[in-house]
């Protein structure tokens, strides 16, 4: 088995401007923030971002890296509206494909299964159809036995990704990824929908360690759909990464209330180590 470990910088070094990039997690939960920070340090821009949006979207939007966003929402969970996403939308900063949470998932399923679309009921009758004029419908070839009706559905197009970024609790060097919290979110789908997937994790462990204490169904990612593994302790900060840590609510509040330029200068100027040290210093300061 090949060793896929690499640094966040190396992972981001394989990405290019103009790519379609899927970002795992959900809202402000288990987001691959260390990889997003590495992306912010790079010059990569003009991205199509596909995400159940949280501060990943907020940061990339504030930094002007998004050309098009595919999402059902952008939220910080405990703060319902992502402030940088909101500001970017209100200044018309990028193109948006807004679909509901389920259609979004089916778009990933279609891509993972190499299908051009999957039929979904949702979207019909809503303005999702108006704001996405490219969405088409598909008619069932099967008539309902009782009514004779052949139902019409939205043909949710595959959300094929050039690359996916996700964050796990554990992974081995080959790319087998493990989540230990209550919800896998959709990180396996993101990886399977992508041509390349980069997985950061709290800790790289030996393969045998993965199932020593945890049940086999925690093994969410198979190495066949993973390209690179990055060890990034606290790498989902400030989003939650249960059970390793919860959301850093105080820091998230700081993020949400600080102008982006000021926030970036203080926290995003250096590498990941510098970020973590600066956060620690801020926390210490707060508690004095």
């Amino acid at each position, binding site marked *: 088995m090949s060793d896929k470990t690499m640094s966040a910088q190396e992972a981001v070094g394989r990405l290019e401007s103009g790519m379609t990039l899927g970002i795992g997690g959900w809202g402000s939960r288990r987001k691959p923030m260390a990889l997003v920070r590495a992306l912010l340090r790079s010059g990569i821009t003009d991205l199509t971002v596909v995400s159940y949006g949280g501060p990943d979207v907020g940061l990339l939007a504030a930094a002007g890296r998004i050309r098009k966003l595919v*999402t059902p929402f952008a939220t910080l969970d405990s703060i319902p509206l992502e402030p940088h996403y909101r500001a970017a939308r209100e200044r018309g900063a990028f193109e948006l494909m807004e679909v509901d949470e389920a259609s979004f998932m089916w778009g990933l399923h279609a891509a993972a299964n190499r299908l051009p679309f999957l039929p979904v*009921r*949702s979207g019909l009758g809503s303005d999702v159809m108006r704001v996405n004029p490219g969405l088409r419908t598909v008619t069932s070839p099967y008539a309902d036995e009782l009514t004779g009706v052949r139902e019409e559905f939205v043909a949710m197009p595959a959300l094929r990704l050039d690359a996916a970024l996700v964050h796990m609790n554990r992974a081995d060097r080959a790319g087998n990824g493990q989540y230990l919290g209550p*919800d896998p979110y959709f990180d396996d789908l993101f990886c399977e929908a992508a041509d390349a997937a980069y997985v950061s994790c709290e800790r790289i462990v030996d393969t045998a360690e993965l199932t020593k204490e945890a049940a086999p169904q925690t093994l969410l990612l198979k190495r066949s759909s993973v390209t690179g593994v990055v060890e990034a302790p606290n790498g989902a900060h400030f989003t939650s990464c249960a059970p390793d840590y919860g959301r850093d609510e105080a820091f998230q509040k700081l993020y949400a209330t600080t102008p982006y330029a000021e926030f970036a200068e203080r926290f995003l100027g250096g590498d990941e180590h510098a970020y973590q040290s600066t956060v620690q210093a801020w926390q210490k300061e707060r508690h004095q």
Partner: protein
Amino acid sequence: MSPTPAEYCVIACAEAWRDNGEVLASPMGLIPSIGARLAKRTFSPDLLLTDGEAMLVGLDGTPEGWLPYRQHLTMVTGGRRHVMMGASQIDRFGNQNISCVGDWARPKRQLLGVRGAPVNTLNNPTSYWIPKHSRRVFVPKVDMVCGVGYDRAAAAGPSATRFHRIPCVVTDLGVFDFATPDHSMRLASLHPGVTVERVREATGFELYVPDEVPYTREPTPAELELIREVIDPSGARDREVLGAGPIPGAAGTGAAKTGAAEAGSAGTGPAKAGDR
């Protein structure tokens, strides 16, 4: 002590889940959350509840099942669920907006996004909770149709109408439904102390008002005791109804901070609450 305005709202929300059977109750916002728990504690014991994250839990918080987002979405499309969402705007046929105010292409105010509203409304019963009934919310035409109303569902055809149902809209003034020939909004009951005139003044479209409008029913002494002593002893419910009035985007999206013992510990977490 006689019931407070917030307690009539709790009763009205609880009634939404009466006779629903063994389905997931997805309340968003504090008052619906107290209502769902009251319904489960009294007349709808088979309801399922979540902890706001990935677990199905009993009233004491004991996990009884796993419901990560991917399975939650199947509860939605499988129809075994009744959600009560918020609404930044709602119109006379029940079209609802939580996405943005103004032109979608460049909104005046970006709100939550469509979240789960399109999938909810086409697949499982979707009710609404609006803590501050006003013309800002009850508009002639919503800026972005997220939750699908009766007219839009009908126009979209049988696949859209097949499982579409909006049982009720509960506000701080009364209860509304769509039990009219053209499925336009009807005043179903007034909370005690509220007049038809006040409702009309706060509604930005023509509302069907029957000749005789009942009052929202009185809580039983046992229900009042449950609300006050067990479910929300800190009285957080009063802040959601009598507060300064939430911003449109946050209306009924579960953003309400809760000191409520049971509702709080059972997790009315905003993210899950926000969408579903």
